[in-house]
């Protein structure tokens, strides 16, 4: 199964409540995915800065003086905010590439969850309620966010198998469904030099999108071509710096419900996830069409593009 939630705020007055609202939505989706949970929150940018959200299974050891150690090596400003097994490293945007290389050298067991200017990704094994509590998601504010509750079918229940997956700077992907050609696609992508860490099917989907975008596609084009190249069932929600997108495979057996008011656009695997949002009784509620790529953005009008058969 798996559950997906997403919330894109139009009304800035709701921004301080983003984490709180998303946490409620996520917890409602617990019985669709009780084994792991994750959330991507799009917060606020500091000009010239970037954020790396990193994870360690031994945070006491790995995060000890990590900011100092990195600062010495990159020769720039580095600050660190530790939340349970995750830490958000803020550094100069032009030093991120070097910092990641240094990080893999000085803390080989630390994994990068996300890289972006506004996004932070938190994910762990456990009930969604507990995961949200560990990272204090309720207190987080931001412009939009997406979350996922996992019921694993294709690979092991691990932190790295949890969603969202970071697909590029400020981009992430969550998935409900199962890809059936992930093994052959993983081999193909690895031959092209794409790094794929786990045996997880969604990681392959995320790597596929990243690879398409690195070879010249826009996110919209990459999602459209995924309808041809990915075999299996999927409802994808992708987070971008200024909004989010939704695409369902042509069979569309994985559920999806959207709701829109003057204040927000919300996504849920089920209507249940949306019932406590303000004004839901008068919201426009509908199901996204199969094989159609939708985008909502703070900077542009919403779009919906059906892929030609």
């Amino acid at each position: 199964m798996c559950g997906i939630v997403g919330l894109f705020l139009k009304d800035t007055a709701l921004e301080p409540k983003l984490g709180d609202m998303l946490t409620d939505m996520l917890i409602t989706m617990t019985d669709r995915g009780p084994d792991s949970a994750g959330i991507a929150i799009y917060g606020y940018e500091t000009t010239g800065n970037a954020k790396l959200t990193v994870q360690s299974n031994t945070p006491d050891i790995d995060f000890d003086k990590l900011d100092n150690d990195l600062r010495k090596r990159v020769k720039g400003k580095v600050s660190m905010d530790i939340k349970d097994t995750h830490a958000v490293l803020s550094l100069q945007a032009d030093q991120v590439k070097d910092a990641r290389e240094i990080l893999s050298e000085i803390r080989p067991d630390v994994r990068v969850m996300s890289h972006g200017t506004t996004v932070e990704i938190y994910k762990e094994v456990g009930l969604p309620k507990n995961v949200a509590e560990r990272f204090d998601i309720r207190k987080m504010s931001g412009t939009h966010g997406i979350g996922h509750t996992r019921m694993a079918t294709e690979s092991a229940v691990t932190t790295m198998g949890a969603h969202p997956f970071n697909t590029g700077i400020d981009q992430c992907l969550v998935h409900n469904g199962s890809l059936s050609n992930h093994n052959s696609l993983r081999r193909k992508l690895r031959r092209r030099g794409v790094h794929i860490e786990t045996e997880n099917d969604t990681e392959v989907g995320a790597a596929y999108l990243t690879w398409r975008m690195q070879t010249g596609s826009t996110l919209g084009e990459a999602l459209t071509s995924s309808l041809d190249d990915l075999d299996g069932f999927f409802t994808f929600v992708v987070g971008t710096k200024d909004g989010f997108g939704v695409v369902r495979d042509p069979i569309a057996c994985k559920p999806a419900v959207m709701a829109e008011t003057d204040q927000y656009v919300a996504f849920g695997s089920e209507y249940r996830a949306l019932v406590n949002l303000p004004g839901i009784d008068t919201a426009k509620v509908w199901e996204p069409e199969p094989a159609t790529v939708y985008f909502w953005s703070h900077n542009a009008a919403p779009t919906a593009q059906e892929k030609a058969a």
Partner: protein
Amino acid sequence: MQTFDLEAQGLRALNSTLHAQADNTDQTHWEIVNPKGSHAIAVGLDAPIEVNIKGSTGYYCAGMNKQATVHVHGSVGPGTAENMMSGTVIVEGDASQYAGATGHGGTLVIKGNASSRCGISMKGIDIIVHGNIGHMSAFMAQSGNLVVCGDAGEALGDSLYEARLFVRGSVKSLGADCIEKEMRPEHIAILEELLERGGCDAKASEFKRYGSARQLYNFNIDNAY
């Protein structure tokens, strides 16, 4: 009228209370408040009662219904009125995928749109949709009637047996072995009754009829409509 607060009293209490209603119950009107998208509301009913659900529901609302009238004042999730035997289910809003699937009898009225696989494997149910229906609707439908006042999605009536499909708007594509058929006076008469039962003000003459070309299965004349 009996009012049941689903949020306060819980799903199991609701369904067991409704199941306890006998054929001759005098508590014939029920109102369910705070459904909040919950699953399996008012499933397996078997008494001539009327249940009004004040809000939207999740998976499998009014599944396996017999005799009862279930009226949802909102939208419904996947599998609504699945395997209905008799009675009536009315949805004021939209219906998610596979509404009325495998239904043997009764009437399902959807006043908004229905999503994919509406009436999949229907076996005698009558489904009347005021709006549009999604792809793969009436897949392997065996008998009964599907009326669509709007448009139908891709692969309508794929691998159809002997169900009648009436569509007023466009059909994106017909599935394997589904063809347009002549609308004879007896079909107009059937459709007029269905439209009236479903509360539609559409004219029967505006519809086209689709059915099985009978090439994909061993056609037996005793099954013919």
